[in-house]
């Protein structure tokens, strides 16, 4: 557990009066308030620190205690002295039990340092507070995103099973109401914002609802034309390659692309680009025939 310099957090001098502290708090709170910094975890953490510093420095009694014991927290004697005093009086009492040393903030929005100094029960008031919103990322295979499917994941020690509609986009965010951090004093839970990260292990590239595939064809099929069968998420489909097809020719197969999100039965298109493969390791006969062709 690290000592937190609340004066430094608010950017004020140790001799600052209540008005200066209030002004400094207001200024920083405006800058880092979660409502003006959505999805910014650093700003949320900073806001918690500012709130905690204000909670201590704006309260004469807490500030006195902090000034007395806070800076010497790491010195065993002062710490023990305070523990003993706390056991006797239990001014904010958390049962005098466990002290965590992670130095991080817990769900209540207070650091371990604060809880150790003022007790876990020393919350701002008994007012109801909504829990913090939580942001998380969920990896989904592109092949799975082709179908509406269910996926289970774990967050805050809880297993959540959700139905992911076909056609979900990479980077798309959905809100799961009430699955964020728990509220305080009976306040409602925060929400969970889930960002989908699509993992593509297929030969297809996706752009919005369309799929793109690069397909090799041999020289003879490109010149003379022919039939071709390719695997797609819709199953095998047959394509007719026109005679004299040029390298990098792109064809469109309507309705064989990715499903349109929340629009059942609607699909984007599939674009196939033909890459003509020039034959290698020619036999003497082939070389002879190509030479003849070139002289025609």
């Amino acid at each position: 557990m690290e000592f937190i310099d609340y004066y430094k957090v608010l950017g004020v001098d140790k001799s600052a009066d209540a008005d200066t502290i209030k002004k400094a708090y207001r200024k920083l709170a405006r800058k880092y308030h979660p409502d003006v910094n959505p999805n910014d975890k650093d700003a949320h953490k900073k806001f918690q620190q500012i709130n905690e510093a204000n909670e201590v420095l704006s309260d004469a009694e807490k500030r006195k205690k902090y000034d007395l014991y806070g800076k010497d927290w790491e010195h065993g004697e002062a710490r023990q002295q305070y523990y003993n005093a706390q056991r006797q009086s239990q001014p904010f009492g958390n049962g005098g039990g466990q002290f965590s040393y992670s130095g991080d903030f817990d769900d209540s929005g207070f650091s371990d340092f604060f809880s150790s100094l003022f007790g876990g029960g020393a919350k701002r008031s008994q007012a109801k507070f909504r829990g913090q919103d939580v942001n998380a990322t969920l990896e989904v295979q592109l092949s799975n995103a082709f179908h509406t499917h269910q996926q289970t994941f774990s967050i805050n020690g809880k297993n959540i099973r959700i139905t992911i509609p076909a056609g979900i986009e990479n980077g798309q965010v959905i809100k799961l109401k009430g699955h964020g951090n728990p509220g305080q004093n009976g306040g409602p839970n925060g929400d969970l914002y889930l960002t989908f990260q699509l993992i593509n292990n297929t030969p297809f590239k996706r752009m919005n609802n369309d799929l793109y595939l690069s397909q090799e064809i041999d020289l003879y099929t490109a010149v003379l034309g022919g039939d071709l069968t390719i695997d797609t998420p819709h199953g095998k489909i047959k394509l007719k390659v026109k005679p004299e097809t040029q390298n990098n020719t792109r064809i469109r197969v309507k309705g064989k692309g990715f499903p349109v999100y929340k629009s059942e039965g609607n699909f984007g298109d599939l674009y196939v680009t033909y890459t003509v493969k020039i034959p290698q390791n020619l036999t003497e006969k082939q070389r002879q025939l190509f030479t003849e062709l070139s002289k025609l």
Partner: protein
Amino acid sequence: MAAKRMIAVKEFCTHHNLETDFIKQLQHHDLIEMVMVKRTGYIVEKNLPIAEKAARLHNELNVNIEGIHAIFQLLSLVEKKEQEIIQLRRELEFYK
């Protein structure tokens, strides 16, 4: 049925320690929609997150209605830009 999807302005303001005029001002700035039922003002449920956010900005940060309006506009702009970035990233990924 419809009443279940609305919250009385008075109730909302009491809960958030606000003057009812605050909600009227939010409506005046087209930030929320307010409906009148038998002379009682109600906030439509879908506008509740906006009203709550505005209440927090007002109560916790002392931001006035004009400031709240500006914040909402800028946040909407930020969100739009973030969506653009996501779309551009997708396109970049495609051409990689």
